[in-house]
Structure formats: structure tokens, C-alpha cells
């Protein structure tokens, strides 16, 4: 019990990393997905390169780059936690964008046309008709990413964020025991059980139509 309390602070930081990343990455991913579908080939190109880099290099490297980058570029400094949020957000937005894009492109053209002939404006067509259907279709893919994010928050330890994994490591050395590691494992596992349940519940809720 005492151990859990000791590690509690790390848990809170990990949960914060997780929630804030989702908060920013979910909408940013949508913006990037729009960019991928833009009429301008410049915007398509830029977002394409962005996605390619984010998916093609290690997240750990990206964390280090965001944290140390400002120093080497202009001698500036960035808060560890903020750097972690930025790196996670940029990385996850790229994955989300591709999932959104796949979802958006899977909606039949007839849905757009039906909306259009009924006089809906383009934003109305997208937000009233297309997006709700996209959400239903991409939920399983998104849940995979979100579960991975829970575990990826541990990577923030490389730039010294006092999240669960770092606190656990410290505690292990301090008390010379492997027990903190099991507590940490339990924490990630339970958090993902909750995430999985939430997605299962949401998927069920959206089962009212096909």
C-alpha cells in the first residue's frame, strides 16, 4: 500500500500524459487528415511528409528531438512535460490522421451526394452525416492506438519526465526490490483494461445502426 502511494505521483503524471496527448492528438489528427485530402498538392505533400516521418522514426527519438532540439537550434529550453506532450501529440496525430483518412474514404460517395442534394452545406455534410459514420468504423483501430499510447507514456522517461516508469525505477533502486516493477505493470495493465472496456462500451452504444 505504501508502495502504491509512493508511486502514486508517477501514476498521476502518466495519466496526465495520456489524457493530454489524446486531447490534442485527436483533433490534430483530423486536421492532418483534411490536409492529406486537400486539393492543394503542397498541403497534401507537407502532411504526407509529416506522417511519413512521424511513423518512420522511433517515438523515443522524437521525444529526445523535441526536448533537446530547442537548445541546439536557438539555445532555448523547454519544459520536460511539455516536450513529452508535444512529441506524443505529433506522433499520435499522424497515426490518427491515417485512421481518419481511411475511415473518411470508406464512406460511400452517395452519402455526400444525398447530403448535398438535400441542401446541407459542406461542413454540415461532414459533421452531421459523414463523421458520425466514420467514428463508428474507426473505433476498433483507434482503440488499438489508444492502448498503445498507455504503454508509450513510459517512453517519456528518456527525457526525465517523472512518470510511472521513472518513479518505479527510482523506487526499485532505493528499496532494492523488484516489487515496484510489478506494481507499475499492474498499473499499466489495469489502465488498459479500463480503456478497452470504455471502447467496448462505446462500440456497443454505436451498434444501434449498421
Amino acid at each position, binding site marked *: 500500500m505504501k508502495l502504491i502511494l509512493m508511486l502514486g505521483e508517477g501514476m498521476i503524471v502518466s495519466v496526465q500524459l495520456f489524457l493530454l496527448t489524446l486531447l490534442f492528438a485527436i483533433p490534430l489528427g483530423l486536421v492532418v487528415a483534411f490536409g492529406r485530402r486537400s486539393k492543394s498538392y503542397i498541403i497534401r505533400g507537407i502532411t504526407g511528409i509529416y506522417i511519413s516521418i512521424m511513423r518512420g522514426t522511433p517515438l523515443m527519438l522524437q521525444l529526445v528531438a523535441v526536448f533537446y532540439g530547442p537548445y541546439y537550434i536557438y539555445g532555448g529550453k523547454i519544459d520536460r512535460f511539455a516536450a513529452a506532450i508535444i512529441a506524443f501529440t505529433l506522433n499520435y496525430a499522424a497515426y490518427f490522421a491515417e485512421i481518419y483518412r481511411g475511415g473518411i474514404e470508406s464512406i*460511400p460517395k*452517395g*452519402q455526400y*451526394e*444525398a*447530403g*448535398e*442534394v*438535400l*441542401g*446541407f452545406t459542406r461542413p*454540415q455534410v461532414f459533421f*452531421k*452525416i459523414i463523421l*458520425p*459514420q466514420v467514428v*463508428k468504423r474507426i473505433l476498433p483501430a483507434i482503440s488499438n492506438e489508444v492502448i498503445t499510447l498507455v504503454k508509450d507514456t513510459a517512453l517519456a522517461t528518456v527525457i526525465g519526465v517523472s512518470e510511472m516508469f521513472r518513479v518505479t525505477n527510482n523506487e526499485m533502486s532505493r528499496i532494492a526490490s523488484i516489487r515496484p516493477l510489478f506494481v507499475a505493470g499492474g498499473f499499466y495493465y489495469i489502465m488498459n483494461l479500463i480503456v478497452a472496456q470504455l471502447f467496448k462500451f462505446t462500440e456497443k452504444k454505436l451498434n*444501434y*445502426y*449498421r
Partner: protein
Amino acid sequence: MIEVLKIYKSFGGKAVLSGISLEVNKGEVVAVIGPSGSGKSTLLRCINLLEKIDRGTIAVENEIMVSTNANGRAEYADKKKLRDIRLKLGLVFQNFNLFPHFNVLKNITEAPVSVAGTRKQEALETALQLLEKMGLEDKAEAYPFELSGGQSQRVAIARALALNPDVLFFDEPTSALDPELTLEVMKVIRKLAEEHMTMVVVTHEMGFAREVADRVIFMDNGVIVEQGTPEELFTNPKNERTKMFIKGFN
């Protein structure tokens, strides 16, 4: 009510409409027949602003939707005007295109409420009346996946009618339906014809065209080959091409 004058449309160099002119009068039911690829659907889609024409003129109730400018290219009216014109037109698709995540009532009321600004209560009442007319009053709460094809198409018709359009277009409304369900949908269209709803129906149902239409248009290769009353066109076609086509159906 609808005037189409010498419209041209091509897809990637392939001419689909080659100078079509057509007039639809108030209260008239026009059937458009012709082989696949003759441009019938494209014609409807152009009038309904789902495709842009290359040149020519389209006007709805004397409001110019598109006309040819001095450079010989189609020039469309401004957005606001196009929106106004669009609300005068209704289109029913071959594969219904109901919104799967809305129930039947919401499929019908969503556009009146959020596009035309009708009050919700009023839109609901209209929707229920339309459903009754379609013989679907018990399906108000159902979701599209729970409906048969014929029911879906009738909901789609109700959805189009809810905006109270001046003209209703049908793009092969029964091509995705088996014969029994086809009859179900035809009955509804016939009912609308009796109420003098202005309609343009692209169809492969010759019997229907013959029975319900005031005028039948035969299209082939992007042009109107022949048009006339069902009597003229079906029993006494003048053009060889029309003769061949109609023979193929008898």
C-alpha cells in the same frame, strides 16, 4: 419550370452529353429511357448540381443556374443562388442513400430543420404525414438497416418531398429492387403523379414509363433521339434507334 438548353458534358475527353435540350413543364411527368451509358443519369446529375456541365444553359423557374459565358465555358450562378435553386429540386437515388445513423424520422426531418429552417415540431408533423402517404407510418422509429429496399426507397422519396421541392427527379429508383418491391415504389410515384407533382424519372421500367409518364424521352449516346407521348413513342416510334430499343423490351 426546368429549361435545359444545349448542354454538353464530357468525362476525360469522352462526351457523355452532347447538346441536350429539354423542357419540363409544371405538373408534367417525364420519363427518360435509353440504354446504359446513354447519359440519362448524367443529365439528372447535372440538373441537380452533382456534376458540372462544360457548356450550355440550365434554368429553374426562370432562375439561371448556369449559362455559357463569352469564352464558351459554363458559368454557374453564385453560391447563394445555387442553394436557393437546389432547394427547389429533389433527387431520389437508385441506391436510396439513406443516412444509416439516423432513424427514419430524422432522415426526413434533418434537412428541413437544419437547411430550410423549419421548426422541429412542424417538420415532424410533415414527416409523419409523408410516412403515412408512403404507407410507412409504423417505421418512423426504424433505422435504415431494418428496412427492405422498397421501404428504404419510399423513405428516400419522403425525405426528398419533405423539402417541398417543385420538381422531383428519380435516378433509376427501382433498379436496385426486385419486381415486387418495384411495384411498391411505382405505386408511390404513380400516386404523386396523380397529385400533379412535377417529376422526371430515369427508368428501365417501360411499363411504368408508358403508363404514368405524360412524355417519354429516348436518349442514346448523349443526345435525345426522340421524344413524345408514351403512345407515340412506344407504338409508333419514328427513329430506327428508338424502334430497336423498344423492340428489345417487348
